[in-house]
């Protein structure tokens, strides 16, 4: 059994401890909250397909029916504004990459 870098029974190092000053910029909680909610807002606007796919997988109930309907409307609206185009484009490229063959291998599902 190899001896890990940490000391036996001692404190183990964490990858989130970066070297250097900890005091870069003020109000770190506000900065973190802003970052997380900006990312969430960006995904809400550009990734409506995933939200709809998630909604249809929910256990059926009157509430989930309303969630599915709302997610459908949301996807239609964001697609109409072109916000879902980037995801659709990358997904199409990825599907192309999945379908590419060296030549001798079987097609998917064979």
């Amino acid at each position, binding site marked *: *059994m190899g*001896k*890990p870098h940490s000391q036996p029974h001692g*404190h183990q190092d964490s990858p989130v401890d970066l070297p250097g000053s900890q005091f870069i910029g003020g109000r770190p909680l506000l900065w973190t909250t802003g*970052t*997380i909610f*900006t990312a969430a807002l*960006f995904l809400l606007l550009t990734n409506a397909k995933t939200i709809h796919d998630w909604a249809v997988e929910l256990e059926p109930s009157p509430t989930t029916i309303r969630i599915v309907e709302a997610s459908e409307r949301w996807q239609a609206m964001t697609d109409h504004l072109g916000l879902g185009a980037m995801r659709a484009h990358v997904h199409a490229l990825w599907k192309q990459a999945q379908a590419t063959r060296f030549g001798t291998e079987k097609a998917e599902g064979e």
Partner: protein
Amino acid sequence: MLFPTLTFGLFFLAVFTVTWAVRGSNEWRKILLLLASWIFYGAWDWRFVALLIASAFLNWSTAALIARSDRPAARKALLAFGVGANLAILGFFKYFDFFLEQAGILLTQLGFARDMPLMQVILPVGVSFFTFQGMSYLIDVAKKRVPPATLLDMTLLMSFFPHLVAGPIVRASDLVPQFQATPKLERGMVAMALLLIVWGLFKKAVVASELSVGLVDPVFFDPGAHSSLDLVIAAYGYAVQIYCDFSAYSDMAIGLAALLGYRFPRNFNQPYRAHSLQDFWRRWHISLSSWLRDYLYIDGLGGSRRGTFRGALNVLITMLLGGLWHGAKWTFVIWGALHGLVQMIETLWRKGKPGWAPSLPKPLAVLLTFHVVTLGWIFFRAETFDGAVAFIGGIGRGDWANTMTTPLYAGLILLGLGMHFTPPNMMEGIALQIRRLPWPLLGFGVGLAILLIDAMRYEGVAPFIYYQF
């Protein structure tokens, strides 16, 4: 509730908001984190939340009694009771049917065939992780390495949702002092956390899932129906899949805990650049290997105190039990035995090597170590011992037609191996840069990265490999 799902994303947003909103009261914060952890665990099966609570109470109360007792014999007896109770929980849920099956086979061979009362016990997710955590806490309290924790801290230590189901195994000495202080965020910690979450998401949702569904699962399901080349590529594919799957979980767990203000230890460090099996275990599942080293190899078996050969033998025993920890299957025992035997040979060779004997050049040692590890993965992944033998036998058939590997799979395998040879501090360097960005820009970048990953991910999310352990 799986990390790379929208359900978990919404859950985490709620937990993040609520726990930081009550940061004025550390006790309330911990209570809310505990409730959130039980909701997270209850999403699999509510019945096992009771097991988790009972296990935490057992370890807390036993440790409290140990700490109060002055008599060494009483402390020892209480420790034996506590460790025995944890092993009984683990043994019942994980090994009960396995040992009964083996007993049935043995009785049949001796001419006493019996129908064994198998119970088809459901395995609680993460039971191996939280029982190991409970045992290490008891041993640390008994050996006075840590003071006893409060009931709230102990319960949260065992239940905290980022590490609950698949580690890292976070010890009381690391996490309880953090629970006792009001957590604080700083930008570098958050930048690294976000990087780890996005990188983990990519490794799991794109690399591991794609390789698993398209290449590894079909080949391991029926090795006899595939060419030697398919088998070789699938073995490499599994080496990349299990790394990208398990290290992804650890990365995301470390990142999520950091966003809540807590530091988890490193669990992976580019394991496939190891130049020996001993080096591999310094880099792979570090929290388990250090746990096994500290509590089993040193505390339990005595380490190398009784000479080189005994030390090497103890390594073999440790690895055999480490293999069995992964599950009640002979294939895991063989995997552990292979790792133990090779480490035994490495130790004995290192100690007894004649002065004139040359050392293997490092690149060759890395290549050799990687292939020993990959051989072990075949046993680890195969459903049965016969399946593993058929897989290895198939490689020897010498049929080199490609029927499975596409350019995408080849590219993902090369990427998965290539990430082991990037500069070790690359992520740290990136985090140091992005912590200076204004939050709207960083938020946009994180959102864009997740969007791209989501566009590439395989449809549906398979559970993490280590959930079954």
